[in-house]
């Protein structure tokens, strides 16, 4: 396993650079939007990756609530952290694209708003983990993750109705996509998934080590008075 990590890292780097070349050079230029459209190859894969990571976080949290397994908790921490990073990328690249194409930085469209709320929920999740003084932090965090997952459909539905009752300023997406563009999009997604997996893997190892060190220190402090005697 230890040797697999650098190999995987090199492969990911190669795949990312190839996907970058395809997205910036090889991909056909979009007719109306021009080169701005190329941000699409980063925006959409980041969004899919972030949603996938949040889904894994939810599953791991439920597993933790049922089985109290440490591995599930570490997976939950790792996916929440990396998911927030990718979600931030989505929220930053979105307005960068929207400004030249839609003429506005932000609109309270259903997808934008739901992504923002999801990001807020997971930031509060990370803050709870950071500020918790309880030895049962994983449990509290898992409960919050379940609440967040219950909230997402309600958010989506409420904003969908909220926005369809009012005139919508712009409608993004829809229509057909050039097969070559789709191909490059999927390639970029695979590259992003590998990248996310790589960070998660390394973060997972770090978290494992951190907990082992903590446990050892706790054990040592228990043993010390006895050795003095």
């Amino acid at each position: 396993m230890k040797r697999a990590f650098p190999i995987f890292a090199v492969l990911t780097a190669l795949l990312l650079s190839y996907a970058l070349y395809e997205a910036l050079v090889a991909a056909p230029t979009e007719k109306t939007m021009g080169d701005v459209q190329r941000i699409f190859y980063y925006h959409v894969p980041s969004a899919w990756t972030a949603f996938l990571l949040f889904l894994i976080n939810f599953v791991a949290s439920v597993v933790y609530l049922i089985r109290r397994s440490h591995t599930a908790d570490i997976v939950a921490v790792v996916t929440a952290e990396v998911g927030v990073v990718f979600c931030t990328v989505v929220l930053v690249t979105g307005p960068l694209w929207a400004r030249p194409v839609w003429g506005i930085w932000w609109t309270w469209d259903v997808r934008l708003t739901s992504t923002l709320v999801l990001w807020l929920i997971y930031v509060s999740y990370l803050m709870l983990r950071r500020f918790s003084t309880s030895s049962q932090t994983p449990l509290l965090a898992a409960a919050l993750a379940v609440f967040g997952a219950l909230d997402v459909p309600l958010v989506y539905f409420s904003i969908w109705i909220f926005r369809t009752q009012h005139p919508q300023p712009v409608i993004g997406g829809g229509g057909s996509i050039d097969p070559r563009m789709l191909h490059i999009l999927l390639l970029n997604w695979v590259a992003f998934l590998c990248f996310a997996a790589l960070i998660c893997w390394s973060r997972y190892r770090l978290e494992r080590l951190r907990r082992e060190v903590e446990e050892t220190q706790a054990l040592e402090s228990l043993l010390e008075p006895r050795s003095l005697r």
Partner: protein
Amino acid sequence: MSLAAITRATLAKDLRLEWRSRDAINSMLFFALLVVVVFSFSFDPNAEESRQIAGGLVWVAFLFAAVVALNQTWARELRNQVLDAFRVSPAPANSLFLAKALGNFIFVCVLEALMTPLFVVFYKLRALGPAWQLIPVAVLGTWALVVNGTFFAAMSIRTRSREIMLPLLLFPISIPAILAMVNATTAILTGELSAWFWLVLLATYDVVFTIACLLLFETVLHAE
């Protein structure tokens, strides 16, 4: 003792304590009053404008004031290790949760009943839609804030800087409920749209999160 009996006993104790000390209600009332006054002279709207914005202002004021009460929910039980005593007792955990949530619900409802006339006066409000619908909006909306608020308050007592932590946890999750309350209130005040959809959404939110709280509260209570 049954769940209902323990709930009633705990609720009665909390109400009696509050009646004698009036800690939560006084701080909430004064806080909400300040919000009303500050909003009122920073916007100074005419009757038509205030109909458009009052829904948002009213609920923001109530939301902030509710956080003041919610933060005090468990503080009293931490002193003298009441919570620990409850943990080792055979009483069902949910009876404690229901009593606390109902207590907060009553406090916030009292606050709303006292503050609403002030809002009407300051913002020159007159509903163009069916005003009686504001009552189900207030009941469902308050429960939506209070049920999750009580739950997250039980979580935030286990953190550093717990008073800050509660709104950080509560607000993101409450976004659909706040959206529903504000839009329902605006719909009723302006009389342009129907509030029914938002009432249904609020009711769904209440049911979903009440069940979630009841299922998970025992776990959170025992997480020391």
